[in-house]
């Protein structure tokens, strides 16, 4: 059976250039959704998860 693969990135605020493209490729080739608490990047590849409390916690290290 095919293993279910996912990616975890607490915040995509730091994801840029090559890293972002690898994440998108992993989604395209393996269906590996990028699960993230705080999202900056757009696209179906990135899914915001976690509670509002988690998002508030992440805001302490990621300012907008």
């Amino acid at each position: 059976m095919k293993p279910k693969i996912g990616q975890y990135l607490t915040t995509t605020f730091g994801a840029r250039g090559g890293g972002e493209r690898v994440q998108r490729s992993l989604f395209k080739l393996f269906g590996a959704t990028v699960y993230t608490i705080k999202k900056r990047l757009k696209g179906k590849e990135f899914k915001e998860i976690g509670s509002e409390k988690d998002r508030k916690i992440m805001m302490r290290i990621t300012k907008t």
Partner: protein
Amino acid sequence: MDMVWIEPFTKDEWDAQVKIRRMLDIPEELLKLDVVIFHCPHDLIILERLNKPSIFYNHRSARPYTFMFDEIIKHIEPMRRMVLIKDDPYIIEQHKYLYSLADVIVSNSKFTQRIMKKVFGFDSFVCYPPVDTKKFKPAKNPARDFYFSVQRINWQKRVDLQIEIFKKLKNEKLIIAGGPPEGYDYNVKRLCEDLPNVEYVGGISDRKVVRYMQNAKAVIQTCYYEDFGLVPVEALACGTPVILVDEGGFKETIHNKKLGIRVKRPYVQNFRKAIKKFDVDKFNPKLLRKEAEKYSEERFKKEMKYYIKLAVERHAKRLQR
């Protein structure tokens, strides 16, 4: 503009990054997965509580703390600069702990693999990032009448160096793309204003990037110790040679003179010499394309499949211990 904490971190900043991640709940979505892939070292901390096979994809190792430290701190505000330590043993140890939580470490180049081993003592596999060779493909009748560079606009990409090089090459046109400017201490647009042969087109769509790449004489890259460097490989896929700095991951991808020119220091003088002598007809687009195909998505998929399987096996062994 988005603002993020910029590495290198102090001990307190590092601890805050880890502490905050420890406070997060384990997302249900992750519990349903068979394998989790990580990209940021701090995120590995969740593996203390999440019992899943894992892969850490190492995009850049610890350059802000080690060999790039002296260059990076020039771009950090003076007050913060004072509290940062090069090769901080605390930060190195913390990295080691985080990496020990992953079942498999995959580096994006031999260059980052070497740093991973040298600084942290961890072995890793190399799996080069993929290039979409269906999207990046050669044009039928390329114009070949300008040079092109594309990158994020930040100091590490040294776009100012490109502008300086072309300042005295009045007969050669350079088109610079990329954006948005982040944390840059000068304005690229303003630097190009008085130069009729240098044009900054800002952030553009992938389609336009492909068109520029297909029609350029060569793609220019000046990044400071690029870890891998996808842009040169994308240029090769378009049948376009590259002229770039002889540093970092570029040494692996542009490994011979048939693919492009690797320029040594001092860059301004040597780039100008290389561009003056450059003859695009000496490069065979079919050969460039063939080289880029080695970095295809199919190859990436095949290699990653192996590492996914390995992560599952290693995790099972870890549980037995």
